[in-house]
């Protein structure tokens, strides 16, 4: 069982006390939970198919060709059609579809023409469709999931690299610090956007989408870790002159033990405070890159891509930009509220009064 020290417990209590941030946290956590089981909620694969007394759960399995269910085609079954077929046949077979029975990729044009469709309850396009008749809610849902996962991965990597190097710079100081500072100064002067464009123009598009997202992540991390080192370096400088560090050193603790077991917990409040803002930054950056066309490879669902479509069809399909914009605003607001609350609850000067 994880035992938290009383200080931390106090901070967490304070965090729970700040209602706005706490509820934002609950909402966001719930949202992440939902998106992690997204395939069960937003999908064109059925949750359950009962065919000739056999039950199929196609959501997470290999694809089922139409022939598996007595249809004539060998490609992926259209479960929405299958549901209707079964209902008409009425011989005990049935299909249970997810709440939103569309995937983020399929073009579903009931009118026969690919064009944006306004939101409709009847067809279960709750937020309408985009220019190629793809369900906007499905694209938003998976776009948000990718953005969240991307930004969390981004944060983790930036922190791991930033903390290690920043702490080392602060702890060892001297020539090591001097050299690394100069390296970081040089490194941060490389223009980020150009690098992204150049890197993307040379990586072959034969790479799978996941690989390309990974490369984008790597490039972004490579250009973002230096910022973290500044804070860690100063914090470490401050902490390492404290008596408890001297004590640890006298006992014979190793450098890495001192850094990770003694210094790091004491600078944790700085880290935690910055975390939500790192995530906000990452979501913003990935959306902006997508908007400019240098982000996630098409046709990956993404907020930036929807925003771009929305602005291109501002007159004819305002529902595209509205849903994308509101999603982005909500997401960023939630994270910012959490950030504010975390900062406040970790602030040691709670009772300080200025006069």
């Amino acid at each position, binding site marked *: 069982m994880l035992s938290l020290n009383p200080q931390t417990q106090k901070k967490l209590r304070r965090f729970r006390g700040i209602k706005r941030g706490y509820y934002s946290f609950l909402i966001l956590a719930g949202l992440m939970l939902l998106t992690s089981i997204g395939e069960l909620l937003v999908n064109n694969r059925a949750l359950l198919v009962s065919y000739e007394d056999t039950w199929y759960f196609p959501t997470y399995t290999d*694809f089922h060709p139409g022939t598996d269910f007595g249809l004539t085609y060998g*490609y992926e079954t259209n479960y929405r059609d299958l549901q209707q077929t079964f209902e008409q046949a009425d011989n005990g077979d049935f299909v249970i579809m997810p709440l939103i029975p569309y995937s983020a990729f399929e073009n579903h044009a009931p009118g026969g*023409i*690919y064009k944006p469709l306004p939101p409709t309850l009847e067809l279960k396009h709750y937020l309408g469709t985009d*220019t190629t008749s793809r369900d906007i809610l499905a694209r938003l849902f998976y776009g948000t999931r990718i953005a969240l996962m991307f930004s969390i991965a981004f944060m983790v990597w930036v922190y791991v690299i930033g903390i290690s190097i920043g702490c080392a710079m602060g702890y060892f100081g001297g020539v090591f610090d001097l050299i690394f500072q100069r390296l970081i100064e040089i490194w941060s002067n490389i223009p980020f956007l150009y690098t992204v464009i150049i890197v993307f*123009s040379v990586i072959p598009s034969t790479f799978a989408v996941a690989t390309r997202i990974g490369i984008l992540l790597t490039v972004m991390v490579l250009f973002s870790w230096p910022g973290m080192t500044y804070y860690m370096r100063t914090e470490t400088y401050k902490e390492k002159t404290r008596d408890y560090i001297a004590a640890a050193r006298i006992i014979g603790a190793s450098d890495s033990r001192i850094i990770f077991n003694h210094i790091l917990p004491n600078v944790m409040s700085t880290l935690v405070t910055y975390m939500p803002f790192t995530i906000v930054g990452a979501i*913003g950056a990935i959306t902006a890159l997508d908007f400019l*066309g240098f982000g996630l490879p*098409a046709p990956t669902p993404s907020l930036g891509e929807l925003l771009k479509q929305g602005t291109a*069809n501002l007159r004819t399909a305002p529902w595209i930009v509205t849903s994308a914009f509101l999603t982005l605003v909500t997401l960023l607001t939630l994270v910012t509220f959490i950030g504010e609350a975390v900062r406040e609850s970790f602030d040691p000067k709670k009772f300080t009064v200025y006069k």
Partner: protein
Amino acid sequence: MHTTTSRHLFGVLLLGFLLSACGGAEESQSTDATLAPDNRQEVQDYYAARPDFFSFKTLADLPADLDWQDGMDLPEIGSDQAIKGGTEYSQIGDFPRTLRTAGPDSNGSFRPWILDYTSLGLAHRHPDKFDFYPALAESWAVDTDNKTIYAKLNPNARWSDGEPVTAEDFMFMFFIFQSDYIVAPWYKNWYSTQYTNITQYDDLTFSITIPEAKPDMDSRVLELRPMPRHFYQELGDDYVDRYQWRFQPTTGPYIIKDKDIKKGTSIALTRLKDWWAIDNKFWKNRYNLDKIQLTVIRDSAKVFEAFKKGDIDQFGLNLAEYWYDKLPNTDVDVEHGYIQKSIFYNQKPRPTYGLWLNTSKPLLDNQDVRIGINYAINWQLVIDRFFRGDYSRLQTSSDGYGEFSHPTLSAREFNIDKALAHFAKAGFTERDENGILINAQGQKLAFTLSSGYENLKDVITILKEEALKTGLELRVEILDGTAGWKKVQEKQHDIHFSAFNTSLEMYPRFWETYHSDNAYDDAFLEDGSVNPVRKLKTQTNNLEAIAIFEMDKLIDAYRASSDKAEMISLAHKMTEMHHDYGSFVPGFYQPFYRLGHWRWVRYPEFFNHKHSGSATQYHVHWIDPVMRAETLEAQKTGTSFGPAIRTFDQYK
């Protein structure tokens, strides 16, 4: 961390907006500093070394029995209602990479503004009658027996810098196009092999001989455009840099002034008030605008907004999305007639929209895979649902050439079973967990589908989704126009969605796109077997990297033939062979063009000509300043002129 990430975010946004302004601004004219070379002696030596190609005779040597023609009986092209003056505001998607008309990057989308539609050859095909009307030439004569065409230049013809156009400019044209300086292999090949002699009789009279008396041999010579001898005195190895941003003097009405070149931002064409051909029968009442201001706007949605605001005067509404949804007939500006909508049905060789398969890539070198891909691409769905049935399916890569086009061949339809059968023949029998076909080695049936058509990216995602049904995975890659074209020119694509624009010609060309000379260096050994060490050739139009020994023979015969019937049968045979090879998936064509234009942009009563490819190609439109003021005023007060939605189907 807060400040850093937000700084990066800001950087991303800011740089994005600045990006368009930065491109291309770094080049400078560093060439002035070096001593300008003088090639006058070199050119003379070149002529002297090739007496068979470059001959000098006197007027006395001119055959007496020539049948001189001048095309003066053809109808006029411009409208006598046209008014000269005004500025047209228009848009280009990308700043031109160069102002050169030959050499690397010169074959881009800016070319029509400085060459194709604005400069003069000896004579041009009449856009209604197909016969030739005079341009630089005053008259010409065709000597079929000797495969020679004689031309007399118009004595008034001038370059835009005032120099007269002479026969030497045509001689020099051969020099420059045959030289290695311009780094243009196509030009070198074409001008070295498709012409055998030029003879100068006096300053204005010359003849050009071609190797075979082709049915359209007159067009081979009459459509030649001279190169200004005096301008290229500095031609040398540094041509590409030296002439990169220098506007070549033109025989046409529009020049580009240095002050109007704002790199990355805008470029403007200015009309020569004293253009030498301004009163000639076929050139009057055309090229009416004093200035054409071309601003770079990359995003088509922004272009449309600029058009709606009145910042640009015309906008192509070819996409159904724009014609029906974004500028519907119920739009306020359309209902009141401030913006007019016109559809014009034309007749011309069709641009070859389709998927170009690079057969030099693994798997795509397998014919069964290629044919399977043909069956796996659902163009009909795109035509029906995305283009809303307005377009038609392209059947071959040479449609619209009358009897030279194949009469019966049709493109393969979307057919899952046939696609699967062909993929199975190529060894792709199993589907993986996502339904993608794999072969025994575990190789996936997956290719990159790239394109430079940002505004047609939806088409590609539709094709991708449909192809998935046949177990074919297409990885989408949307590039900007220039980068996309660069990619295919470097032959780095797997499958590319693109089109070649076609000019008004009697019969299709095959050498450029299908001859092995344009696919590989030394594609075959003596005995016709594949050369194992052959190297892929870049910067050619053989985007499919086709190298078929038999096809080469047919192309050579086709190029050498002077018999129309034989050429037709060869063309059909080659089209069939190309169809069987399966390296091109014919897409769609548009039997019309349609556009929206503000009321002050005026077109002739007949709107345009039968063989026109776009509304502005023949520059017959003009701007009426009175109407402009009237319309802007009416827009303020809400006065209506009544809608003007016009269909011109006289050539349907």
